């Protein structure tokens, strides 16, 4: 196995672990996520076990739902402030999760622009 291959494998494992952690921290179920992404729950289960991978589009949707950048799936440390829902997982609809994602995208962009503006001032 080449070195690159090893690093790909560990990245793959890392994404799987992060997916599971983000979901648990936000109090969502695998069923919630499956519904949100429009896929079968077994795919989510396999993805979290590192047996299958999700498409980049799906990961992007998940990142927006959790309010993190795509890079957060590959980073060692978890973001400090996981998103908390005031609703129980069973009550949460796909529309609710889409609303949260839409607002998270705006919040992430706002941070991105703040970083650009702060970078220019330095």
């Amino acid at each position, binding site marked *: 196995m080449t070195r690159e291959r090893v690093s790909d494998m560990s990245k793959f494992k890392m994404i799987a672990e992060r997916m599971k952690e983000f979901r648990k921290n936000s109090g969502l179920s695998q069923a919630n996520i499956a519904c949100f992404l429009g896929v079968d729950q077994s795919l989510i289960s396999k993805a979290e076990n590192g047996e299958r991978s999700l498409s980049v589009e799906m990961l992007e949707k998940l990142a927006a739902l959790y*309010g993190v950048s795509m890079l957060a799936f590959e980073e060692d440390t978890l973001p*400090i*402030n*996981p*998103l*908390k*829902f*005031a*609703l129980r997982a069973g*009550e*949460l*609809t796909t*529309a*609710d999760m889409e*609303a*949260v994602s*839409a*607002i*998270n*995208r*705006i*919040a992430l*962009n*706002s*941070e991105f*622009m*703040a*970083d*650009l*503006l*702060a970078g*220019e001032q330095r």
Partner: protein
Amino acid sequence: MICTSDIMTKSIQLRTKLGEDANSPIDIFALAQDIEQLTIVYYPMGENLSGICLKGAAGNNVISINSSMTVGRQRFSLAHELYHLYFDKNMTAVCAQKIGVGQETEKEADLFASYFLMPAAALQTKVEMLKAKNDSNDLSIYDVIRLEQYFQVSHQAAVIRLRQDKLLNADAADAMISKGVRRLAESIGYSTELYKPLPVEKQYMTYGNYIDQAEQVLKRGLVSDGKYEELLLTAFRSDLVYGDNEEGEEIID
């Protein structure tokens, strides 16, 4: 345990901080627009959620309000989210629509919203005036409508508060809370805007910090025109990208 007097104090503290007196009805949307580094997003969230508050690491905060709810309720939701922004140590809050239920912080935020929009002393004075005018000890449904119109809150928020302050008894409150009041309000001369959601075309909108940030990054050459447009479109501001679709020229008067 929720400490009501603590919440009351906080509501007055924030009014003062934002340049309002302790008693007058407030235009909360205009007030929020003036808060630095705050972005306000109107988004139709459906039936479960009322609002979202996200605090950014560098102090760039976002509050979103469910724009498919009535204007009166949106004002209450905004006050509720301001509690999360200023007094909740958690960085994110996704809030459910039911008033007065859920976790402790949610109940606190609801109580705060009620006092922020309807300060205790002002409400008391108004109620006394109505009672004196009617020469009665009980508030009628029309009185409750006058109060909610004066403070610009939803009918539910008004009834819940009046009951809680023992200005309405439980039976009267129960009878009034689920009553549709739009027609009644109309019949005594009020506009019904308070009881309606925003028009559908205005339900997706972003104001405040974000728009300013987008202009700044473009002006300083930190992003391309394409990226600037993408930033605005993500925030539902196609009007700024493709131009205004409102008819007629601006009237300067």
